[in-house]
């Protein structure tokens, strides 16, 4: 589904990603772990098309298409979803208006018909029910006044509505206590299927207790330094990232 080949990227002229290679297949969960400043968030922004992140070398293929040539909204249409580390507050835009506009934009992109107001309400209610969320969050402005946990659950709701084939979870555990973390992880697990894949970006292992990865990669110094199974995450929890620090023996 996702093929990243020798990806180099700079931010403000500084090279952050220095040759990433990664292959993700449908149905898989990949965790990208690494110390602060290793390029984890840069990778998620490069994949979702944020401005200010310049790819200087390499390719990213998503379902065989060149992802890097697409606008952020086209990537969403193709099925890429970024769950933000810090979901943005948008005063004046009701959550439900936002969700409907997003869903219909994606449906237009995919050549599917738009949903009318009734169909949309029915769909979104089924999703909030599935995720055990109250409908009251729909009426409020996007993320405005939401607690940390509510913001992340709102990300999960958007994911449920847009049904992406690749979801990138960027430090989803940050700012959450353990109960909120479990709730969000449960929501994400409900959305997993053999047809979609997850890229879980995290500093800490604890999220991976709840969203269990098939593959774990250590990202440090702009490269993937080590890959393994879920046991690699547990090792890192014990030993930390010291061995991947710049200058440490490989």
């Amino acid at each position, binding site marked *: 589904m996702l093929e990243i080949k020798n990806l180099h990227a700079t931010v403000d002229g500084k090279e952050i990603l220095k040759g990433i290679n990664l292959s993700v297949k449908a149905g898989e969960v990949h965790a990208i772990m690494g110390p602060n400043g290793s390029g984890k968030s840069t990778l998620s922004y490069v994949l979702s098309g944020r401005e200010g992140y310049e790819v200087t070398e390499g390719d990213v293929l998503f379902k065989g298409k060149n992802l890097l040539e697409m606008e952020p909204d086209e990537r969403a249409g193709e099925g890429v979803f970024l769950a933000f580390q810090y979901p*943005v507050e948008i005063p004046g835009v009701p959550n439900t208006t936002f969700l409907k506009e997003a869903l219909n934009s*994606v449906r237009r992109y995919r050549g599917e018909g738009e949903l009318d107001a009734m169909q949309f309400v029915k769909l979104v209610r089924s999703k909030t029910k599935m995720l055990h969320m109250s409908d009251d969050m729909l009426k409020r*402005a996007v993320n405005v006044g939401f607690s940390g946990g509510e913001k992340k659950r709102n990300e999960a709701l958007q994911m449920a509505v847009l049904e992406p084939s690749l979801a990138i979870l960027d430090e989803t555990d940050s700012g959450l206590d353990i109960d909120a973390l479990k709730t969000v992880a449960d929501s994400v697990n409900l959305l997993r299927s053999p047809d979609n894949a997850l890229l879980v970006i995290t500093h800490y292992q604890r999220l991976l207790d709840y969203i269990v990865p098939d593959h774990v990669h250590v990202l440090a110094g702009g490269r993937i330094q080590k890959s393994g199974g879920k046991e690699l995450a547990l090792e890192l929890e014990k030993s930390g990232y010291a061995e991947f620090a710049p200058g440490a023996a490989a």
Partner: protein
Amino acid sequence: MSEPPFTEHYSALRDALPGQNLAWLSRRRESALADFSRQGLPTPRQESWKYTSLRPLEKVGFGVDGAPRACVSIDRAPSLLPAASEHHRLVFVDGHYRADLSSAGTLPDGAQFTTLREVMAKDPDWLERHLGTLSGEPASRESQPLLALNTAMMMNGFVLRLGEGVVLHDPIEVVHLGGAGDRPLAYHPRNLIVMAPRSQATLIEHYTHMGEQPYYTNSGTEVSLAEGAVLHHYKLQADALNAFHTATVHAEVAADALYDAFGMTTGAQLSRNEIAVRLAGEGANCHLNGAYLVRGKQHCDNTTRIDHLVPNTACSEVFKGVIDDEARAVFQGKITVHRDAQHTNGHQLSKVLLLSDRAEIDAKPELEIYADDVVCSHGATAGDLDHDALFYLRSRGIPEMAARSMLIEAFLAESVHNIAAQGICPALMSSIGHWLAGRREGL
């Protein structure tokens, strides 16, 4: 020395001006004309006109029409209220009252909502006592040449008069359609609102266009609110993009009365809304809020002046603007807290979205405080759309133009939804939507 522009209209109109039988009115017109002739149109040399030049007005070559002569056939005038509502409304085409397009709702006893001409004919003594009283002091007239021009040449306008305790439950509406003539026309609607103690009303003014001709509306409105009266005064100025619009409002607010104004501007190549409010009794309160969306080479000026004259008065002012292309907006807000006006509460805010590098805002907030126990604040911001919010929306599949529109709409929606007469919100939101659609299509 040549006469200032527009003065020659007086002789052209002389025979058609209403109220010629009223000596006091003729004297006021003559004196106003003399005032205007002496001063001419305001120029940027005057402090309060520093950012707005009326020069483009002089280039058009406006004429006047003493009698209605619309060339465009009109069978129905647009409304900002839901189609089903049977409200009272007055419709003017190129400044002339059109009874055939107007509709009479039911007004309670003690309420009068009619044309200036009718009041000139039927109640001239009352009119003499009220017309020009808020703006007529020689000192203020000196700096009000547009109002002097209006006084000299006013043909018509509306009068709203409410007796003590009279409450209008339904909004009333004034619609102005411009550009329907066969040549560029200038006209000067004159309006008068006099509300007795504890009366209440919601008044909507809608300026829009039918024909192709440029036109110039120069309105003057006097508002007098007695103790405990409440006026919600809403205005949508959606004039043609080749039109000119200047409006001067003087309001006097007595104890415990509320003047609640909201104005939205999308039209006219050059517009200026000037509102002066005197909070003259304890507990007097005013809200002066506004929203504007301008593009191309439009110029939109909102100038307000609020005088806190006595203790315990309050004002709040929020103007939000969206400026695209090479358009330019001006916000001048002066709040004066006079020496006796202790415990004044005054807040003012100007917020602007600049959508292009060539868009411009000149914001001039001014607080003058002569009392020592007051709470006053002001602020002015200008910036681009929030890039993080834009990326967030786009990352969910919403194309860039639509995402920008959503954020622009959200920026203004707050102001619109804060207005008390919820009935006109859909119409105001749809005029925002219309502007955004035009922007997307590059109109």
